[in-house]
């Protein structure tokens, strides 16, 4: 690997975010009376990956798979319920106030809907200048002007006093990008940055995002369900399903030679503008599983076209390197599926045949497993 350990900007270790289903004091009162355990939505359930300096990572998956929750946890909009995020080798759960302020200054987010992500009662200037005021950075006007110019809102002065409702969708997203850039961040989470824009405007905003990555040396985490966009923008790709990463690797390898059955189905669903192209259609049956009462074993087993029996029911497939996938750069790819042989010596069949471990692999065993992994 050409990157050393020092180049890792952000390391996500076993990140978990569970949301309690019934909140409020009546629910908790009832629970304490009945003695029942509260239900949790397992939005993100043990996700590990790292983002290197200057790298673009794509998070893909269908709606509800936890990719947005992961992105929001990355910029600390959610407090994770388990696992941790390290920034510059400092654990975010342990940093002091100054460390947190430094992280806030270096981690920014671009939201999906530019109509919602700008305060309707704030002018463009105030919106972009706000992060500077929060962090008490001087040369406000010059920085705002630079950021707007970089976002190709020219001439910048003309936009200062405009309100969001006076701007088009594309211009708003550019303002949002300028706001994210004005603090000179190290990494940005872009949550479906162009999905709400007109198709004609997407190319322009995408070009801007690309320029931002190249010229700033920014690390960007793109969250999208649009695989063709991610293929265009990202160095590496992680596919998520029901709160877990099922496949991770260099973008071109994952797209051209998908290994996990879910990735294969996902890539198969991307339309190809060629009527005569002959390809085998893999259509997924059924619905996404229950994220409250998580199924045991592999979470994809009920919809999986390659279901191979007890091992899928009993053992949770860990995300690991596989020894029997042929091709270049395969050592960088990790897959969570029992179809392939582990390169790390993990034997899922032992788990199923062994006594009682299979039962533990269900929802109740999650906490123990997480602590065992540490």
């Amino acid at each position, binding site marked *: 690997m050409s990157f050393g350990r020092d180049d890792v900007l952000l390391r996500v270790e076993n990140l978990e975010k569970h949301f309690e289903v019934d909140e*409020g*004091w009546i629910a908790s009162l009832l629970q304490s009376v009945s003695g029942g355990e509260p239900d949790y939505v397992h939005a993100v359930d043990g996700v590990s990956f790292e983002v290197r300096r200057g790298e673009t990572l794509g998070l893909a998956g269908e709606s509800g798979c936890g990719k947005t929750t992961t992105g*929001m946890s990355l*910029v*600390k*909009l959610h407090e994770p319920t388990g696992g941790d995020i390290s920034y510059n080798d400092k654990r975010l759960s342990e940093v002091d106030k100054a460390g*947190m*302020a*430094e992280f*806030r*200054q*270096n*981690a*920014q*987010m671009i*939201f*999906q*809907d530019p109509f*919602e*992500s*700008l*305060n*309707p*009662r*704030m*002018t463009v*200037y105030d919106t972009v200048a*706000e*992060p500077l005021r*929060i*962090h008490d950075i*001087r*040369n*406000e*006007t*010059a*920085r705002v002007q*630079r*950021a707007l110019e*970089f976002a190709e809102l020219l001439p910048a002065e003309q936009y*200062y*006093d405009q309100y969001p409702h006076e701007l088009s969708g594309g211009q708003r997203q550019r303002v*949002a990008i300028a*706001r994210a*850039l004005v*603090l*000179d961040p*190290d990494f940005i989470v872009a949550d479906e940055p162009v999905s709400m824009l007109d198709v004609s405007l997407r190319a322009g905003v995408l070009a801007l995002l690309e320029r931002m990555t190249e*010229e*700033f*040396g920014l690390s960007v985490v793109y969250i999208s369900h649009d695989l063709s966009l991610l293929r265009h923008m990202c160095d590496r790709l992680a596919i998520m399903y029901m709160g877990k990463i099922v496949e991770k690797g260099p973008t071109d390898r994952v797209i051209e030679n998908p290994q996990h059955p879910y990735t294969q189905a996902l890539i198969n669903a991307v339309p190809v503008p060629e009527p005569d192209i002959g390809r085998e259609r893999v259509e997924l049956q059924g619905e996404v599983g229950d994220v409250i009462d998580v199924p045991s074993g592999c979470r994809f087993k009920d919809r999986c076209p390659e279901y191979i029996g007890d091992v899928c029911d009993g053992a949770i497939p860990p995300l690991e390197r596989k020894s029997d996938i042929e091709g270049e750069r395969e050592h960088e790819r990790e897959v969570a599926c029992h179809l392939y042989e582990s390169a790390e010596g993990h034997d899922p069949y032992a788990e199923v045949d062994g006594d009682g471990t299979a039962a533990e692999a269900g929802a109740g065993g999650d906490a123990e497993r997480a602590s065992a992994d540490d």
Partner: protein
Amino acid sequence: MAQEERTTQSIFTDVEDRTSSEEINKWERTTRLWRETLREHWGLLTDELSVKLSMLVVALFVLVAIFAPWIATNPPLQRQYQTEDGILIAKWVEPSILGGNSEYILGTTAQGFDIFSQLVYGTRAALLVGLIAAVFTAGIGTMVGLVAGYYGGTVDDALMRIVDFLYGMPLLPTVIILVALLGPSLWNIILAVIILQWRATARVIRSQALSLRERPFVKAAQVAGASDWHIISRHLAPNVLPLSFLYGSFAIAWAILTEAGVSFIGLGDPNTVSWGTMLQASRAYSALQFGAWWWFVPPGVCIGLLVISGFLIGRGYEEITNPKLQ
């Protein structure tokens, strides 16, 4: 900033060299933007004839209240005449505008007070009650609503249970208890009105804050590291301000009506002249039975005019806050 030096390609690398003369004057800018917003709202508000007329009426009352000592022909609580033996008798003078043979424009009450002067000074009480109650109703309600809605959880629960409790408090018993404890005065009525009115504002503002805090622009501010107070004051408050103005303008009308009602049943301040106490006195001396309608019609008309104007202005403002009504 160590981070910045490491990233050599930053677009801000030479930004420090720029002179600060380009820095925009913050105050100048803020006042200019406020002026623009206010002008825009004013334009929308005065677009409608009913709102224009209502504003004219309110302005008139305000002028009367300010210049009351110059407009009133006599002190409002000074008897204009007494019987020779000093015993007060129920006798009123007919108004001069109806051809009555006297110097009193609207006649006098049975106690010998000049009705016109009472009416003029009553404007002061009405506007005082209305404005103070409105400011506090909107202010307390907005603050409580924003805090409850933004923080949620236990804070929200606690504040909303207080609001629930206040919703269970009826108007008259509350006023009676306050008057019994603190003695009859205009301020106790204002206090009671405030205590009983901020609950509705708090509820509505809380519901707004609940939805606003989930909006991505609030999340963006959180990502940038904004403090809770920063988000409440810069992002939530400006977005609920039109709504609190709306509730404030309705509160004016309600407070005036409440004061009149409370005074009418005799819980008002006997040392202050208000339209409500005028009505109460006219009832006590059976003005209606004796046909002395000039005693109770003027204060009734004034209350009606001011309250209707308040509601119409509120209604006009509602159209600004909720464009769907237009």
